[in-house]
């Protein structure tokens, strides 16, 4: 029953999707040359109509894309051809619509004037202005500190939360399971929002600047580390847990004496890696005013001072590369 509904849903989706792309993108932007038509009764009928046609076709005969996707095959040779063609048409339309929407234009990429401009910028980028190295380094240090503070503030929260977000420690009743689900939900949700967007939210809240950038990283780091930590906890060897339980130890003691010792090294390694990631993210956040090297970069970019931009870009690349090597070395040594 559930499967049947799912199949019907997929058929309806493909019908509506094909109709929408043709009606909303391809006809107005390619055929009518950028005339926007209102989405009125006739157009709605077209979309719903094609959706229904495919749904009916799918359930009456078995020429159904839903069946093709769910079962991997369709019985009957013409039904199979129809289902395959619907799938192919959808794919082709997606490529066409994607091309139109992103405004892909090879002529813009290889046009003489454009190439000349690009050449100028690249030349400037590779003749960096060494005068600003001092201030750029200072801004870089600011970015590294920002990333460091965000990581350091997030770690205690993630550490505490991770034990409540580990399935194997939270499967002893309805309340623990609810807590587990709640934490997992919140961390998954906050993690799915990019730090850049958090930075924009926090810059409204606490004002634009490094503090907003750090808060954005803190939120993202808490949810990412909680996820990594708790997955590590779910992976621990249950033998020692059993042995400590068998001595009559309390739940807290079992976690502290058998789970934590198995996790400290991986936790450390995740944390260092996270700091490394945060340096990169802090740079990007700086672009929207989060302070540090990113903000400096966007300022010179605004002034079209490409030689200074080049200096900063090279510096960022260098620092990110060094941090990457160092963090990989440390993590290797921790194993």
């Amino acid at each position, binding site marked *: 029953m559930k499967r049947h509904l799912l199949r019907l849903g997929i058929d309806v989706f493909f019908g509506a999707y094909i109709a929408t792309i043709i009606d909303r993108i391809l006809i107005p932007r390619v055929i009518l040359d950028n005339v926007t038509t209102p989405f009125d009764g006739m157009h709605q009928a077209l979309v719903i109509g094609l959706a229904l046609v495919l749904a009916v076709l799918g359930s009456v005969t078995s020429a159904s894309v839903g069946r093709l996707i769910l079962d991997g095959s369709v019985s009957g040779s013409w039904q199979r051809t129809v289902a395959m063609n619907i799938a192919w048409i959808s794919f082709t339309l997606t490529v066409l619509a994607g091309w139109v929407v992103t405004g892909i234009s090879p002529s813009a990429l290889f046009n003489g004037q454009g190439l000349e401009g690009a050449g100028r910028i690249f030349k400037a980028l590779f003749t960096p202005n060494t005068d600003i190295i001092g201030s750029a380094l200072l801004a870089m240090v600011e970015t590294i500190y920002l990333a460091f503070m965000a990581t350091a503030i997030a770690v205690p929260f993630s550490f505490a939360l991770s034990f409540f977000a580990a399935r194997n420690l939270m499967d002893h009743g309805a309340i623990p399971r609810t807590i587990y689900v709640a934490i997992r939900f919140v961390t998954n949700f906050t993690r799915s929002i990019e730090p850049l967007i958090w930075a924009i939210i926090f810059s409204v809240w606490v004002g634009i600047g490094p503090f907003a950038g750090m808060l954005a990283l803190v939120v993202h780091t808490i949810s990412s580390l909680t996820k990594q930590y708790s997955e590590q906890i779910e992976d621990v060897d249950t*033998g020692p847990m059993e042995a400590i339980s068998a*001595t009559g130890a309390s739940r807290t003691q079992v976690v502290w004496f058998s789970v934590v010792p198995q996790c400290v090294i991986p936790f450390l390694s995740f944390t260092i890696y996270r700091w490394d990631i945060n340096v990169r993210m802090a740079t990007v956040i700086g672009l929207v005013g989060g302070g540090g090297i990113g903000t400096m970069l966007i300022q010179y970019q605004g002034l079209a001072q490409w030689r200074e931009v080049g200096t900063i870009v090279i510096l960022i690349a260098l620092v990110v590369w060094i941090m990457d090597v160092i963090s990989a070395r440390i993590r290797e040594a921790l194993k």
Partner: protein
Amino acid sequence: MPPLISAEHLSFEYPNGFKALKNVSFTVEPGEFLVVIGLSGSGKSTLMRTINRLLEPTSGTLTFHGSDVTHIEGDALRRHRQKIGMIFQHFNLIKRHSVLRNTLYGALGQLSSMQSMLGHFSPDLCEKALRNLDIVGIREKADQRADSLSGGQQQRVAIARALMQDPMLLLADEPVASLDPATSHSVMKYLDRINKEFGTTVVCNLHFLSLVRQYATRVIALKAGEIVFEGQPSEITEQWFKEIYGDDATEVEIR
């Protein structure tokens, strides 16, 4: 004297519905060295974990030292487990911690969470831990990391850890299954000595009948979650052997 353990019609079903113990009844007298044998998957480990209540019986009654422990929980459960030491096939030590700390962890049940988590173990306890390490002959390894020891030595640390509980009962779940024959004997000898010198009751799973004959005072055989044999080690005849392990089995010696 009343029996130390008395199990009546004990059954256990795993959450997935698998019945690992079916209507098992037996008693264990104080001071016995009871060995449980049976094929892989026959329910030996499950039986062990039911006795110290790492698992809760699905039905039946389990009496330990005169009190019904079938469904106890909370503090009563912790106190019950404190009276029973347990050692495992894979030793289950905290690898990164020292031998001494691992031994001290046997006393966790007697300590408050706060006190123990701050890492505070009294000088008396440390003294006792060292004495127990002495009993199993590895006092000089006290400061080494647990995972730097050989298998046999790790199992002896596990025994010392169990001794911290001053156990009335020692459960040993295949204590020598991952050890070579010579080391197996040395570990079994420590269990035997604890049984004889301290009068600690031992319930032990073993796979090798030669070891069973040497150390057991009584034997229980499990087959598919049921007791199919109970008696003296000397009573395990060829016929019983085939009954317990199946017709194709032949006995392997370990000396």
